[in-house]
């Protein structure tokens, strides 16, 4: 299956532009554009290095080690992997249902993770583009520029993230490599002192989160022509929802909406995910391309993450976030909002929801209880699905009679969004780069489109000295014309 602009017909005679990491170290994306002599885009591809080898790494390990080990996948979303693995392994210890205390502490941990990750993304990574413009001076288009022009925004971004990290520390045991969730429940309750320390700040966190929604919304509404059209493509929307259709980022069933907003598949049980989803392999990318099996790769691809979740659910079960969701839905005027830049607005609505959920959970006496573990007749297989900050995250394990993991399958959020991100890149390349002299600002448009999805770049390795990004301009004969690097 090949999409428009995925593969050029006469690749040999085309000029190649690579937005490319210069590093042996795993974990960065690369964009390649092929241009003809007139500068017209003939091919655009986003390549992201996947978690190569991690599933193999897990096989042969005792199952109880897995929730801790999988945190080594990612330095930004270790909690998501920690919880998805623990959920998947609950049936292995016979915990077909975990205790209310365990579920609420896991939820607290998860919504802390959502809050900190969304805050980091919006305030640190995306706000420079959004506040100053994609082609603003590169010297300004960074967090220093944000801090100079909007010092309070920068400060709140740090403190929002710190609060989320503190929720994680208290529920997971420590800020890094937490061990809070274990197959069958959790190994730590929240103490009254810990609860009270979080309660002190949570109302302020909710206020700041609401302000952040309004900031994202105002940016979108102030420049609708750009925000509604930039990188626009239409696709299915895919996520978990609660049994009653509410947003639920920790548990539920799978739902698929089509591009017009109609629910086309609902009530899909998590353990059946592998009958519903297939993954296509393409020779030019390490990362697979998931699609809904019965729709096929051409029509069955979809997007996940905040933009999908806010619209795939029927409502958000917290008052302030639901009010903001209403405004978001109204913006679509009866149609789903597909604009990639709307991810930022949706992301901030989710951050507000996470803050409200945390507040409510802190008021729940179950989080103080010692009833932390459930068990029963042991099983040998489990699937754990959660909505991680970037989208649906699937962990699937089989365990042998020796209690060692015999099978591991992970489908991470960024993989689900593979085709969607490629589409956004192609739309931006066609609209902004075609036939024009390439500049740093124009190439930044490509990055802006990618950043909207906040792809997980198979991180957890980040050694100093590497250049996260290099841009190379070559002529039709492969001769290097220009080169620029960024970061490092």
């Amino acid at each position, binding site marked *: 299956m090949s999409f428009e602009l995925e593969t050029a017909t006469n690749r040999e005679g085309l000029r190649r532009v690579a937005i490319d990491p210069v590093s042996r170290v795993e974990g960065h994306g690369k964009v390649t554009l092929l241009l003809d002599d007139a500068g017209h885009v003939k091919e655009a591809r986003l390549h992201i290095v996947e978690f190569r080898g991690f599933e193999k790494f897990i096989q042969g390990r005792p199952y109880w080690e897995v929730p801790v080990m999988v945190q080594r996948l990612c330095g930004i979303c270790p909690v998501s992997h920690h919880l998805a693995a623990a959920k998947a392994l609950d049936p292995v210890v016979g915990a077909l249902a975990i205790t209310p205390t365990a579920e609420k502490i896991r939820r607290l941990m998860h919504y802390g993770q959502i809050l900190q990750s969304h805050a980091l993304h919006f305030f640190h990574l995306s706000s420079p583009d959004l506040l100053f413009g994609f082609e603003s001076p590169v010297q300004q288009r*960074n967090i220093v520029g944000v801090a100079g022009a909007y010092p309070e925004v920068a400060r709140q*971004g740090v403190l929002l993230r710190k609060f989320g990290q503190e929720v994680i520390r208290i529920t997971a045991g420590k800020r890094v490599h937490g061990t809070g969730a274990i197959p069958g429940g959790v190994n730590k309750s929240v103490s009254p002192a810990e609860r009270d320390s979080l309660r002190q700040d949570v109302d302020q966190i909710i206020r700041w989160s609401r302000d952040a929604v309004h900031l994202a919304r105002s940016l979108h509404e102030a420049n609708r022509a750009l925000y509604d059209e930039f990188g626009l493509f239409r696709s299915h929307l895919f996520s978990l929802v609660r049994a009653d259709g509410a947003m639920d980022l920790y548990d539920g069933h799978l739902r698929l909406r089509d591009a017009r907003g109609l629910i086309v598949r609902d009530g899909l049980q998590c353990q059946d995910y592998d009958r519903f989803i297939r993954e296509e392999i393409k020779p030019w990318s390490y990362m697979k391309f998931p699609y809904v099996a019965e729709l096929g790769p051409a029509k069955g691809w979809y997007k996940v993450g905040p933009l999908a979740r806010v619209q795939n659910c029927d409502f958000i079960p917290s008052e302030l976030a639901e009010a903001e969701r209403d405004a978001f839905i109204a913006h679509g005027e009866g149609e789903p909002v597909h604009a990639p830049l709307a991810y930022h607005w949706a992301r901030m609505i989710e951050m507000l929801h996470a803050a409200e959920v945390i507040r409510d959970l802190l008021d729940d006496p179950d989080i103080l209880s010692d009833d932390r573990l459930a068990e029963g007749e042991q099983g040998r297989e489990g699937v754990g699905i959660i909505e991680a900050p970037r989208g649906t995250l699937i962990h699937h394990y089989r365990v042998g009679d020796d209690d060692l993991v015999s099978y591991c399958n992970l489908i991470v959020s960024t993989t689900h969004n593979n085709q969607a991100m490629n589409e956004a890149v192609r739309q931006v390349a066609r609209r902004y780069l075609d036939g024009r002299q390439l500049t740093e600002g124009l190439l930044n448009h490509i990055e802006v489109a990618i950043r909207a999805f906040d792809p997980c770049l198979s991180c957890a390795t980040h*050694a100093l000295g590497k250049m996260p990004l290099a841009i190379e301009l070559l002529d039709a004969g492969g001769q290097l014309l220009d080169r620029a690097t960024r970061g490092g």
Partner: protein
Amino acid sequence: MSVVVFAVGNPSRGDDALGPLLIAELEARAPPGVHLVGDFQLQIEHALDLEGHALALFIDAGTGTPAPFEFRETTPHAGRPVSSHALPPEAVLQVYADIRGTPPPPAFVLCVRGEEFGLGESLSAAARHNLAAARNHLAACLACPDAAHWRSLRAPLAA
């Protein structure tokens, strides 16, 4: 003098474990006044860990960097992040300056060269050699936690 030492890296990815190994050793024998922070990666909230300290040290593995290690002073700089997944030390210092409105403490980077960063790999032979050299240098730094003294230690060392 109060010092904060950051060490970052993923212990499951070969030589990326250089930072975690050094901080694990320090946990057993850090002198008084040395505050240790270990993490996968540097992020914006690490700026808050700089508060109250007169000196900062960032320890990390490096790829393509001088062997056995590079020791240099560093200053705030924002750069241009490509993803939300990691910050360089300079950006953490800049975040501190932004949110506090004051300059951060003098800060240094101890970048220990690594060679292999594969998942599940152990430390490479070259990294083990570099680790030993870095361990000695770190001890010399912490024996006299003073910015002027650390500046005098910046001369490159033989492998």
